[in-house]
Structure formats: structure tokens, C-alpha cells
């Protein structure tokens, strides 16, 4: 899709718009804009420090030398009303919610007079409620004569919204169908290249067991006011997955960082297996709290270092298999890691491969393997499948369930509600840094309202 908007230049092929072939040798973002191709990226491509109005005003298509804030604002307001895409216009985009940012991005594409609009996984970070307000806006755009490409791995969304569906797998087109003729099993097979059985899950454990992981009255400073942790209390029992649902920016990252030992809490207590543990990376590792992060490139793995080096990073303090009298035993490490790479189906299973050259799915499999090695009693998994393809996500989910079946306590913090609902035994919400209970019988709409803080009172 980056090819379509000019960020990546194609090696070959043809691109036609309204039947007119485009000049691919000179294809660039500016050319794409002129041609009327607009894109809403999965990761916001707005300038965070600028306001919505400013973001809609700096592009290369804007004419005129002067920038007159009030005049530009009127233009944006008119556009927002026309498509039902309201968002705060005068604060830095950085302070908007994901859904609001998305609306601003769609507005921007519209302001450019986009004829083709590409939406890359627009619902990935939205609550069900936000998704429901997005769909009518997309339908209105299509009804207005725009071509809309809607990228999603959620089949029900495709069925709700799309007229036709094309499945891509590993960079190739598998097939195209009218949505009316597409059934879920067929699409699933196309996406995976094989059948996808339902996730097998055994019954929940007895509630009587003592919790393996206890977090009490944990408070910590946040990146923003809304993400400050406020007296978070959580308990996870052996053989249990506790799901923490929530919208990005409500304290997930802060909770993850505290439990990884890289953010100092202002108050609170942590117990593992009944024993108090200090909030520090080393103390947590010694207490065998494993940590699986969706931020592979920045938190989980070190791109630029080999698979082998990444693997032994975890145990670098005192892993006797790899270290003898403080010296790294390279060949022993490579043997161990190579076996593990095969076991966790990392491709290529080459201990010397640079992590940066692995696909997201393979890199995450490596991280999963590393963290689950040695059966840690407690695992903190934060957005463990962010940005993964369906097959790799399934692999991660299966491994989490296997750990649960073996008696591990798993804290699953995820902004993907589907993931939490599919895996967790109990689910709570993280809203503005507080833990909010979710009633057992709540449906998706009710959960969505809780996540938005509508029923917090």
C-alpha cells in the first residue's frame, strides 16, 4: 500500500487510475496526491505537534503563500460537517484519541480531493463504538463516488462494509470475490494458506488457588495526565489469563514499563508467588516475571543484533549455559538458540541472522520463545500480536494458552478487544490509568462504553 501512495517505488508492474496508466518512474508522494490517491495509515501520519487545521494546511497541494488560521479553520469545519467527521481542531493532534486522529486523516484526504482512499487497518485501535461511527462515514464517502480500499484482517468488518474482497498473502494476490459470495471459512483459508481451527481452550482453573502475581495500589507517573497509573490492583492466579482491555494511551504503556522494571512507580507493592518483589528490571527477572512486548523494535528485541544475541540478552546476568566465568560461550549459545529457533518455527532458523531482517511475525516468535523458555511462572504480555499476520498471531495465542494450561499466570494487556475476549479468563478495563471492572455479562457495546470511560461514574 505504501507503493500506492508513493512512499515506496515499485520494481515493476502497472498502476492505472481511471483507466489512465501512471508514470511509475516518477511516482512519489506528491504525484500520488496529485493523482488523487489518499491514505489513512495504520500508524498516524499526521504531524503530532501541529493542530488538525495546521495538519490540513501544510501539504504540497495547498496554494497561497500566507497561512490564515481562521480562514483555513472554516474550510475544515465545513468539510467535517459534510461527512460527519467531527474532531477537535485547535489542539495538537498528539492530544487527540486514535479515533479522532483517524477522522482528521480522512478529512485531510478529502480536503485533497482524493478519488481513491486507502484505509490501512483503521479499526485496529478503535473501540466497537468508535468503529460504528466510522463505518457510516466510510459509506458516505463511497456513496459520494470515492473508491475506498479498506484493509482489515477482521472478517466481520469486511462483510459489514465491503462490496468486494481481495485476499493478499505473503505479498501475492490469492483471490478476489464479491463479499456476498465470500464465506468466512474460505477467506480464512486464503489468508492462512490452511484451515484455521477454533482456538482450543480448557476450562478456567479453580479460583481457590493463591494468586501468583499480585499488584497492589500501584501508582506511577504517566507520559500524559490520562495515562498516569492510579492505584492499580490486579491478581492473577496460576493457570489463569487476566485480560486488561483498554484504548491506547490509558496507562498500558506505563503499566508495561513498571512491570518491566524501567519505570519507577510512585507507590505500590508487587508480589510474585506471595513474596514481595522490588520494581526493578533485575529483581523482576530474578523473580522470573517474563515480559512479552508488542513493541518489538524498541522494547522487546534489539534490531542490529543477531537472533542468538537477542536470545541470550534475557539471561545475560547469570545464565550458566551461555556464560562461563563471565565469558560468553558463543558456540554453546548458538547450539541452544538454533534448537529453540526450530522449536518456535522462526524462519530463517539462523542464530546469526540480524533481527532487523526478520519479518514481524518471525521476530515476535523469537521473542515468545525467549520469554517462555524455562516456563516462567508469570508472564506479562502487552499487545503481543500488534502488527502480526494472522498465522503468527495465532501462533502467539496458542503459546499463551499452552503456558496457561501448564499453570502459568498471564497478565494480558491489549488494546485489541477481540484478543482479550478470546483468551482471557477474566477481563478488566484500564481507563485513564485506573482498573475498572467489566461485568461478566457485558456485551461488546457495553464494554466499549466502559473503555471510553462513559460508565466510569
Amino acid at each position, binding site marked *: 500500500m505504501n507503493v500506492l501512495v508513493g512512499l515506496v517505488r515499485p520494481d515493476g508492474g502497472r498502476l492505472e487510475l481511471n483507466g489512465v496508466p501512471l508514470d511509475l518512474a516518477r511516482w*512519489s*508522494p*506528491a504525484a500520488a496526491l496529485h493523482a488523487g490517491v489518499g491514505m489513512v495509515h495504520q500508524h498516524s501520519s499526521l504531524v*503530532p*505537534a501541529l493542530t488538525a487545521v*495546521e495538519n490540513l*494546511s*501544510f501539504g*504540497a497541494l495547498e496554494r497561497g503563500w500566507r497561512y490564515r488560521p481562521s480562514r483555513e479553520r472554516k474550510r475544515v469545519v465545513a468539510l467535517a460537517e459534510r461527512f460527519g467527521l467531527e474532531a477537535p481542531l485547535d489542539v495538537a493532534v498528539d492530544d487527540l484519541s486514535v479515533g479522532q486522529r483517524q477522522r482528521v486523516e480522512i478529512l485531510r484526504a478529502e480536503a485533497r480531493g482524493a478519488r481513491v482512499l486507502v484505509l490501512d487497518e483503521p479499526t485496529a485501535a478503535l473501540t466497537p463504538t468508535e468503529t460504528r461511527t466510522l463505518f457510516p462515514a466510510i459509506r458516505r464517502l463511497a456513496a459520494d463516488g470515492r473508491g475506498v480500499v479498506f484493509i482489515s484482517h477482521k472478517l466481520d468488518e469486511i462483510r459489514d462494509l465491503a462490496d468486494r474482497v481481495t485476499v493478499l498473502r505473503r505479498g501475492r494476490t490469492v483471490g478476489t470475490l464479491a463479499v456476498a459470495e465470500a464465506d468466512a471459512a474460505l477467506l480464512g483459508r486464503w489468508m492462512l494458506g490452511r484451515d484455521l481451527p477454533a482456538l482450543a481452550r480448557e476450562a478456567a482453573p479453580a479460583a481457590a488457588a493463591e494468586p501468583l502475581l499480585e499488584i497492589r495500589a500501584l501508582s506511577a507517573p504517566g507520559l500524559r495526565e490520562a495515562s498516569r497509573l492510579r492505584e492499580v490492583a490486579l491478581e492473577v492466579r496460576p493457570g489463569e489469563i487476566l485480560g486488561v482491555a483498554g484504548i491506547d494511551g490509558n496507562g498500558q504503556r506505563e503499566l508495561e514499563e513498571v512491570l518491566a522494571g524501567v519505570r519507577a512507580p510512585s507507590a505500590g507493592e508487587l508480589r510474585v508467588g506471595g513474596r514481595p518483589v522490588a520494581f526493578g528490571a533485575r529483581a523482576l527477572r530474578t523473580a522470573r516475571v517474563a515480559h512479552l512486548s508488542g513493541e518489538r523494535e524498541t522494547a522487546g528485541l534489539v534490531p542490529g543484533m543477531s537472533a542468538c544475541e537477542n536470545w541470550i540478552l534475557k539471561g545475560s546476568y547469570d545464565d550458566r549455559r551461555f556464560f562461563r566465568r563471565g565469558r560468553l560461550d558463543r558456540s554453546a549459545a548458538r547450539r541452544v538458540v538454533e534448537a529453540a529457533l526450530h522449536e518456535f518455527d522462526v524462519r530463517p532458523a539462523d542464530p546469526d541472522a540480524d533481527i532487523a531482517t526478520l519479518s514481524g511475525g518471525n521476530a515476535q516468535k523469537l521473542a515468545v520463545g525467549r520469554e517462555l523458555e524455562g516456563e516462567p511462572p508469570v508472564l506479562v504480555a502487552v499487545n503481543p500480536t500488534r502488527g502480526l499476520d494472522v498465522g503468527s498471531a495465532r501462533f502467539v495465542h496458542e503459546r499463551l494458552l499452552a503456558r496457561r494450561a501448564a499453570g502459568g499466570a498471564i497478565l494480558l494487556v491489549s488494546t485489541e478487544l477481540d484478543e482479550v475476549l478470546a483468551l482471557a479468563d477474566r477481563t478488566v478495563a484500564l481507563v485513564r490509568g485506573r482498573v475498572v471492572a467489566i461485568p461478566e455479562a457485558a456485551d461488546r457495546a457495553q464494554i466499549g462504553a466502559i473503555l471510553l470511560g462513559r460508565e466510569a461514574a
Partner: protein
Amino acid sequence: MEELLAASLRLGAPLLLAALGELIVERAGVVNIGIEGMMLVGAFAAFAAAVATGSPGIGVGAALAAGAAVGLLFAAFAVGRRADQIVVGMAVNLLALGATGLAARALYAGSIPEAPRWGELAIPGLAELPWLGPVLFVQTPFVYVGLVGAAGVGWFLTRTRPGLRLRAVGEAARAADAEGVSVARVRVAALAFGGALAGLAGASLSVSQTGTFTEGMTAGRGFIALAIVIFGRWRPVGAAAAALFFGATTALQFRLQARGYAVPYPVFLMLPYVVTLAVLALATGGGRAPADLGRPYAREER
């Protein structure tokens, strides 16, 4: 008091000019520590041209052109080749120091002539104002350009489309690229402008304040300008206030020296630099640097 304020402005002007140039460059996402060298080249170009032609005005023009040329040289490496901006900046500083020193010796063979100078220019009418007149309106043209320039840079950044694009490039180069804004073009233009202003700042040292040229005469003022940008939180008004503050410490330093205390004079000379250090140590936090500051941009990355 009036005299001290007027001196603060006069001594702060080169700092302000250089800082305004640096501010534009940094808001476009480039750290230009070569600003010291660009000032030095400007000081020399102004001096040499003024001596050769007898006109300080032509000297100033030469300084602008020479500064911009060094800015473009910096851009060729830091933007064109995506080299590390710190390394390129250091290279520019060393090159400028050596080249101007060599050229001065080759041209003047040990006896540095006196250059014609741009003196104070009283603004008719305003200069007669009580108190304010002598402070603000009997100054060198560099002071006027600096103050008007600060307002102009502020207006440019918030009220013009090119200014908006420049900020977008510094904050999120990739997002700007996706909107069809050429990151390279914006950064090259910013560096040319920043270089020209640094050159102008250098000219104010050689053809206004002193009328002479000595090796390394900028004496770290480029680095103080860098500190001013940070201290002024990447805003022109902040930069103007910070430049005035540093101008005042320099003016005070001269005063203290003149008093003839029984303290070795280098102790007073140190004052502006000690203040720079203290300010940088204390001014951390608050104000946010452009998010893409110091990062070369390449489209294929990701």
C-alpha cells in the same frame, strides 16, 4: 543603566542573529553545530570585502553570501549524503577556523589593516524619545535587523505556508514527505538561511564591533547561539530574550573589568561562558525540541 542596556543589545545582536538562523534550521530538524564556523567565515568575508572595497555594506553582503555558501556545503553532506550532523558540524568548524586563519595570513602578511565600520544609525524621531531612544534607536543596523528578524521569524513560522511546512518537516519528516513536501528542499533552504544569518552575525563582529579580524574571533559565540535556541525553547521571542540576557552578561563583564578589581581579568572574560554552562544545566525540561531534530531522513527506511 541606559548605557548598559544599549551595550547589552549591541553585544547581544550577533548572538540573536546567529540564534535566529539556528532556530530556523533546528525547526526544520537539523542540528547545525557548524554555526560557529559559519560565523567565522562571515566575519572574515565581511572584513576582507570591506577592506578591499572600502565599503562595509559590501562586506555585509559578502558575509551573507559566504555564510549561505557554507550552509549549503553543510547541506550537501548532512542532507544530500545524510551524514551525521554533529560530525559535519565539527568539520565545518575546523575547516572555517583553519581556512580563515590561512587566508588572513596570506592576504595581509601579518599586518591586519583596519576595516571601515558600520556605526550606530539613529532612527530619526524615535531616537529623541527619552530613555528608550538612546537604548533602542541609536544602534547599529545589526540590532535593528535582529529585533525585526525575531518578529519576522515568528510570523514566518506561524502565519505562512512555508513556515508551516518547515515545522512539519522538523516534527515529522515522514509525514511531511507523505504530504508531498520535499524534506530535502526545506532543509537545504533552512540551512542556507541559517548560514546567511550566521554570516551576518560574524560580519557584525568584524565590520561593526571591532573593525578588524583575528583568528578565531567568534570565540565560541556560535555555541552560545546554540544554547540560546535551547534556552529560548525554539521560539523567536525566547531566543531574543535569551540573546539579550547573554549580551547583558558580556556587557557586565566589560564593566567589571573596567572597575579594576584586584581579580585577574580572565575571570571576568569567563563570565558569559560560565553563565551559558549554568543556564544549559538548569534549563533542561520545559519546552520541547522538534521531534525529528538531528535525524537524517531517507524515504525507503521502515
